């Protein structure tokens, strides 16, 4: 509706001597009209170009419709014209906060098709990197979610931590976001000297800093008032929508493919999956924060297990996947990432279909935002944890 109509609806008629009175239009006692409010495509809370159209009555939301596609980059089509080495550089860009985990998925898919045995050491290093990448990703959301609720400080602490982790990962991979460290059959190059020691020290350091987040954010009464009971997602609804990762775990479902369908060497270590109870914003954040702790536990176990040996193997000049198709799913930081890889035997895939966690997670938004207040919409939006590039691909 236009602003003009609003003005009409609220047109004040003055009754002399009686102050301002509202002239009442229509039959209803106090007619108001709904307003449609676009959050995005460029809104601070959407972390990218993502849009939600809200129908609001005052600050109460009648309906919410996510509008996606502003950031569509055609990854699936691009991948059909790239060989596997190039695809690796491509996929660590759809969810730019989980570069390593993304490329890992592609490498695993190709290796599965080739029925290739990856050296043990490579697998353990991949796990180590994937877990550091997970923490890197989660810290970002710990910071940004708090920021969305108006707490500015956790963001800075989170970035301080992220800087340390990025520095660590950079020393091995050369990249800070786009690692391109995997290759079919292993890793590009082994860890540099001193990496394990630093990794160990960093995990200790992070452990000592995690209580700060709990005190500053999780335990804060204002934070709890803003998140407890906001946007509860029942487990069955969550499953039917297809949410995954912390968003699903918050509903009480301990689904995590590191546990339920272990890849790499996750079967050989303990993986703790924190779960929530009510599936509300608080639980989602709770799971996110505790997943960092769980990842640190995993990292410590990896430190104890790390074998010596080669990290890659001799590859043919051009890696070609044999004819056929496969599906590989991994637990990305934000949830289930699946790659459906179909090959006709050529050097490029015939089809690469991505099942990205963010895309499924945002499907829950209309359900969650129904009949909430506008500020709660932000609290919900921030807590379903998505990366816009990962939605649109």
């Amino acid at each position, binding site marked *: 509706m236009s602003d003009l109509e609003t003005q009409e609806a609220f047109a004040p008629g003055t009754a002399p001597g009686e102050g301002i009175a509202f002239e009442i239009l229509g039959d209803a006692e106090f007619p108001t009209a709904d307003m449609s*409010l676009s959050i995005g495509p460029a809104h601070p809370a959407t972390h990218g170009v993502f849009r939600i159209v809200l129908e609001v009555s005052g600050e109460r939301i009648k309906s919410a419709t996510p509008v996606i596609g502003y950031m569509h980059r055609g990854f699936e089509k691009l991948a059909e014209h790239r060989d596997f080495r190039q695809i690796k550089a491509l996929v660590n860009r759809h969810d730019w906060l989980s570069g390593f985990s993304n490329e890992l998925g592609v490498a695993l898919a190709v290796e599965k098709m080739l029925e290739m045995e990856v050296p043990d050491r490579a697998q353990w290093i991949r796990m180590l990197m994937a877990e550091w990448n997970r923490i890197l990703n989660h810290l970002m959301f710990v910071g940004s979610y708090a920021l969305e609720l*108006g707490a500015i400080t956790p963001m800075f602490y989170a970035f301080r931590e992220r800087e340390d982790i990025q520095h660590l990962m950079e020393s091995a991979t050369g990249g800070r976001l786009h690692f391109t460290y995997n290759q079919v059959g292993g890793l590009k190059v082994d860890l540099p000297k001193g990496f394990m020691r630093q990794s160990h020290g960093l995990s200790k350091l992070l452990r000592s800093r995690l209580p700060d987040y709990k005190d500053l954010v999780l335990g804060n009464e204002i934070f709890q008032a803003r998140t407890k009971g906001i946007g509860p997602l029942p487990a069955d609804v969550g499953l039917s929508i297809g949410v995954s990762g912390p968003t699903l775990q918050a509903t009480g479902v301990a689904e995590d493919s590191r546990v339920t369908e272990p890849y790499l060497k996750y079967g050989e270590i303990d993986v703790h999956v924190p779960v929530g109870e009510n599936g509300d914003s608080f639980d989602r954040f709770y799971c996110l924060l505790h997943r960092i702790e769980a990842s640190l536990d995993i990292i410590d176990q990896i430190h104890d297990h790390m074998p010596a040996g080669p990290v890659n193997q001799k590859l043919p000049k051009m890696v070609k996947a044999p004819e056929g198709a496969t599906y590989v799913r991994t637990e990305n930081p934000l949830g289930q990432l699946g790659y459906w890889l179909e090959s006709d035997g050529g050097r490029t895939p015939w089809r690469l279909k991505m099942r990205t966690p963010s895309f499924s997670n945002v499907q829950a938004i209309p359900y969650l935002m129904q009949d909430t*207040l506008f500020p709660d919409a932000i609290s919900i939006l921030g807590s379903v944890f998505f990366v816009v590039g990962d939605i649109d691909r």
Partner: protein
Amino acid sequence: MMESASVTAEVIVAQAVSIFDVGDGFVLPVLIKLVFVLALFFVLPLVGGYLEHKAMGRMQARRGPVEAGPFGSLQLVADGIKFIQKEDLIPRAADKWVFAIAPGVALVPAMLIFLVLPFGPGVFALDLELGLFYALAASSVSVLGVLMGGWASANKFSLIAGLRAGAQLIAYELPLILAAIAVAVQAGTLSLVGIVEAQANFLIPGTEINLWFVFPQILGFGIFFVAALAELSRPPFDMPIGDSELVFGYMTEYTGIKYAMYMLTEYAGMISMSALTVVLYLGGWQLLPGVPLPGCEAGGGLFDCSPVGVISGVLITIGKIMALVFVMVWFRVAFPRLREDQLQRISWLVLIPLSLLNLAVITVAKVVF
């Protein structure tokens, strides 16, 4: 106590002389006072802003500004120059006149409060008999500028922000004033200078121990400070700005100098509300309860001062103001934002009943002792 109150009243009449009242003329003192108020108005917010930048930075494991001036102290001046250079955008659909004057409407009342704030012995422009009333009245006008800006921007986010600011003002003006009334009752005057003096002379009944009003009225102090935060839209009550929800609230469409005016209003508001708190509860320019200033004779060691006394008095006041500003910054750093309805609930269900209770207790105590 009744006796002492009447004595106090007499003393006030004798002491409430500004050091700027030089000579017999009219023009000269007025000019000096104007310069004084303007200087305070432009310098103190900068100091407060710098404190905010630095303290916030350090608390967030950063350094804050470092490049502009020594230790980055001229950052806000540099920002000001930048804002002046920026293009002044007015949205096409905006209500142009209202849009243009709104920042001024917010800014001027913030400046007017400085007229009555006492910063030291005799260091004030005016000692109105209704000083407290005037200050609270002036402070609430600023919100009008916010509402106007929110409406005139022709932006839905700004509109929501303006309405939130209005609702917030209504909800928090009441506890603010009720808390302040309790102080006025205890002091027996509405004059801000008089309130400072009353604190210097307030003794615990039956003893010789001097106390500031913050001790008997700790509840009122808390209410006043929280309500002041809400009125200034400082975190955790910054819903009218709410950058993650409302983009930048009522300031979304403002650029350049107008935006700078809103920012200045915010910082000036922080200073003036802190100064009011200092005057009402923290003994004004007294260093510690019962400790006279050096070189001051009259009125419990707070008036008729030598230059040393005046300067130390001013420094003490500003020190206290900055301490309160620091607390505001600290809250901003540590807390997330409340939701609008939660804020209203806190006001109507907690703060207002409590402030009424506070007022009742103080009034009864005043009559009894």
